[in-house]
């Protein structure tokens, strides 16, 4: 290596020397900033429910939902049906071009078990029509369904099927949408049911040759009905029995998981609602309150349970349809509804039997259903929000996304401080559980205390909120796992220190809260 090269290398090495840092620069900081604010009222805590304000500003909890819901699709189904026809000449003859050589009327029945349907309105569904032609000329085939009409016009489809042979018939397929059509299922003479009439017309290709057609040359037509869903029907719906145990989720109760609640009074209705123009009977065998968190069940005791109920048909038609409603009132005086609800059910199970046309075809085939028709049992709860709680545990879950940049800043320790003005006459002690993307708990922040209850006056009414603060300590371990947290569960103990003294809840009750942080932040770069 020459002296010159050595010199250049030396210079290049020196040139490359920079002010490289040997370790990262870091320091600790303390930050106190507001993080969030908000107001929690009953609507936030008890979701999917409606509160009605009484003249004295107290609240009533109102909940309405169907426990049983039998619509037309539940009562009978139109099965996927294939109507297959082979049409042929009765004699052998030469067929010149442009000649209608077959015109044939056929009837086929839908296999609707137990029902004799005269008329159907189609909400959705369709059919695939497939034609196979063995004749040595092209054929224009027209399929007309005279009883299937929309806006006064019959459903009619014409297809050109190329020439084929007996060994290798030509095939043509076409999808037809039946949505919005009205189907007359009384057959060609008008006194049948479940019957569809079709007319086939075959005309030879006007541009083809004269061909010799024998009575063995059958054109095959296949109409495959698929997913026919009606929204109107007339006929005899049959004598059918529907027995089941249906479960309903009480979403508005799902946040209460344990503890006890003392409910002052309850008024609940079970409304049996018949929107079908058909006579029915029903029996509610059992209604059960289930707390899936505890596994506790409470059966409702009420005189109507197990009794046969006659259910009249709905009245009116189409837009004037008026369902028949059979109300069953359940209250604190005629049932054990309080303990039924104090079980904090998040599910109800109803065991029931319903029967339509128990006396047979007494309507002369004039049962009706309309698009809005259903046979349902509706739960209607209307209760004053007057209760007491003893360590009633309430949970709610929120999505969470925390993105620290450990390359530049890292929370080392600190605390979150929750302060609030609480009107509710209940203490609220809320712990925070952090879950990973698998729903597994990865850490918990425990509250240092409770948001203290508002103080009721001698009438049990809180006129001024109580201010209090609680803190959540954040340590190194928490910060190491916090990035994995995808959701946060608020686990709150709602407790009345004067339990079992019950209090009314007023429309202005809320918790106005603020969350601020005092955190240690390590800055690194």
């Amino acid at each position, binding site marked *: 290596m*020459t*002296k*010159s090269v050595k*010199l*250049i290398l*030396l*210079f*290049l090495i*020196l*040139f490359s*020397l*920079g*002010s490289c*840092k*040997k*370790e*990262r*620069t*870091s*320091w600790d*900081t*303390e*930050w*106190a*900033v*507001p*993080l*969030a*604010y*908000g*107001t929690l009222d009953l609507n936030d805590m008890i979701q999917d429910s409606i509160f009605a304000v009484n003249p004295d500003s107290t609240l009533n909890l109102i909940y309405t939902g169907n426990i049983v819901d039998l619509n037309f699709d539940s009562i009978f189904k139109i099965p996927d049906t294939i109507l297959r026809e082979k049409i042929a000449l009765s004699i052998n003859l030469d067929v010149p071009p442009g000649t209608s050589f077959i015109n044939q009327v056929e009837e086929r029945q839908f296999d609707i078990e137990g029902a004799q349907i005269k008329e159907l309105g189609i909400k959705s569904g369709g059919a695939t029509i497939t034609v196979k032609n063995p004749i040595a000329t092209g054929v224009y085939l027209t399929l007309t369904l005279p009883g299937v009409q929309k806006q006064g016009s019959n459903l009619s489809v014409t297809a050109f099927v190329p020439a084929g042979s007996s060994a290798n018939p030509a095939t043509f397929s076409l999808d037809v949408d039946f949505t919005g059509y009205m189907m007359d299922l009384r057959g060609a003479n008008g006194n049948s049911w479940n019957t569809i009439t079709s007319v086939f017309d075959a005309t030879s290709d006007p541009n083809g040759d004269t061909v010799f057609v024998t009575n063995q040359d059958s054109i095959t037509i296949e109409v495959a009905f698929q997913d026919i869903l009606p929204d109107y029907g007339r006929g005899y719906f049959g004598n059918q029995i529907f027995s089941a145990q249906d479960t309903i989720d009480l979403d508005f109760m799902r946040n209460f998981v344990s503890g006890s609640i003392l409910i002052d009074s309850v008024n609940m209705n079970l409304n049996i609602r018949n929107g079908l123009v058909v006579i029915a009977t029903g029996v509610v065998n059992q209604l059960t309150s289930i707390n899936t968190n505890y596994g506790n069940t409470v059966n409702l005791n009420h005189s109507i349970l197990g009794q046969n109920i006659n259910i009249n048909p709905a009245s009116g038609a189409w837009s004037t349809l008026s369902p028949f409603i059979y109300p069953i009132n359940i209250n604190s005086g005629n049932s054990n509804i309080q303990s039924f609800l104090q079980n904090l059910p998040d599910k109800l199970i109803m065991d029931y039997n319903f029967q339509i046309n128990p006396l047979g075809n007494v309507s002369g085939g004039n049962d009706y259903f309309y698009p809005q028709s259903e046979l349902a049992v509706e739960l209607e709860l209307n209760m004053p929000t007057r209760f007491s709680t003893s360590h009633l545990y309430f949970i709610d879950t*929120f*999505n969470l*996304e925390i993105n620290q940049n450990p390359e530049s800043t890292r929370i080392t320790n600190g605390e979150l401080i929750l302060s609030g003005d609480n009107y509710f006459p209940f203490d609220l002690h809320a712990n925070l559980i952090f879950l990973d993307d698998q729903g597994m708990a990865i850490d918990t922040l425990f509250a240092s205390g409770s948001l203290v209850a508002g103080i009721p006056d001698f009438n049990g009414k809180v006129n001024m909120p109580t201010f209090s603060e609680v803190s959540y300590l954040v340590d190194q371990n928490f910060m190491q796992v916090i990035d994995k947290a995808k959701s946060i569960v608020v686990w709150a103990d709602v407790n009345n220190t004067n339990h079992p003294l019950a209090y009314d809840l007023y429309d202005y009750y809320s918790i106005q*809260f*603020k*969350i*601020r942080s*005092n955190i240690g*932040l390590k*800055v690194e770069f």
Partner: protein
Amino acid sequence: MRSYLIIIAFFSFGLSNAQLYHGFAIDSNFQDKKLVIDFQTEDYYGTLNIQNIMIDRFAFGGYIDQHTKDLTSHKLTQNNRLGGETYSQITFYDYKTNLFKKERLGYYLGIGYRNYVNGNITQDVFNLAMYGNAPYLNQELNLNNTRLQNLAYWKLNFGFFDKKYGSGGNISFLYGNRFIKGELENGSFYANDEIVNLKGNGQVSFSDGSKNGLGAFNGWGVSVDFNWNIPINWFKTKAIIQLKAENIGFISWNKGTTTYAVDSTYSFYGFDFSDIINGNSALNNETDWMDSLNVKETKGNVMTWIPARITFAKVIDQFSERKLQSTFGVRMITTRDYFPQIFAGVYYRPVNWFAVGATLRYGGFDSFDGGLRLDFMAKDFFAISISTASVYGTFSNKGYGRSINVGIRGTIK
């Protein structure tokens, strides 16, 4: 190939070491000189009120403890200028060629990398950044006149020089590598348990962040340097007065340059809880943040003047027969954070192969300090110089800047 030592001034023609050490010039006959390779590095920083113990942590890494923060904070005022640069350059001098057929004119080619920073950090900004806001709840922090600029660029230069006195000049193509410039003319920060109030009037620009590393090209520019060494009579002997202007030019940063401008007051009370649980929080939306703060974002070319350096001084004549010489002068860098610097010193050369120099100075990014220089010259092959413009700061954590410069020069032909 014949190589031999060139005992000339290391620090002529706009090279950095001379710039810092203050004033050297040449006066010699270069008729028989050949090709010379010269390497110079200049690394320094200075601050008015921030001691080295703090700056070192930023420059070289390490944990900044409470004591260090307290020590610094207590010394700060609203004017705490700071600045520094690292600069390295390799230059090839051709003494053999007579440029434009003039015997006294040579030329040179060089490449260098300059990373320059200057700014002003107010006491409240420092405290906020280093302690966080928790110790300052219910106090309004003054963020006025906070600024920071960082420029990094490659410099490819071609120049000519006078072989006798070292006067000359060059034109340089600048290859913009990185640019950050932020300034808050007026600003304040206030926080308590319920609110954070930010007031601000300023802007920040930065070059395309997607291009990193020394090779990133984010703009281009042009600059010129010139150096005029004037021989004069000085107390019955000869001396040289030097007028030098360096880095007079600009860089146009390319279209990827982003500028954020803000002139607003923003109050933050925390996120609305209902927004958080409904997924509508600005927490996850950068655009909402920007709108809330009334920040205007623009992208496009930004033209900046690079900080120029201007020196007027009586400089050392490296080829003077006197063993002891004096030097003094004044220097300026064209940024708001550089206080005009005056300096004076002596240079003693007892033997041919060794010389030592010392200066005192006031001004610059810091205030008062001394300089020291050691030159070693091995005849016929190699010369090296080590110097500092901050003797106290370089060797003490209590100083307000550090400076290390190295120069190596040798012949390759």
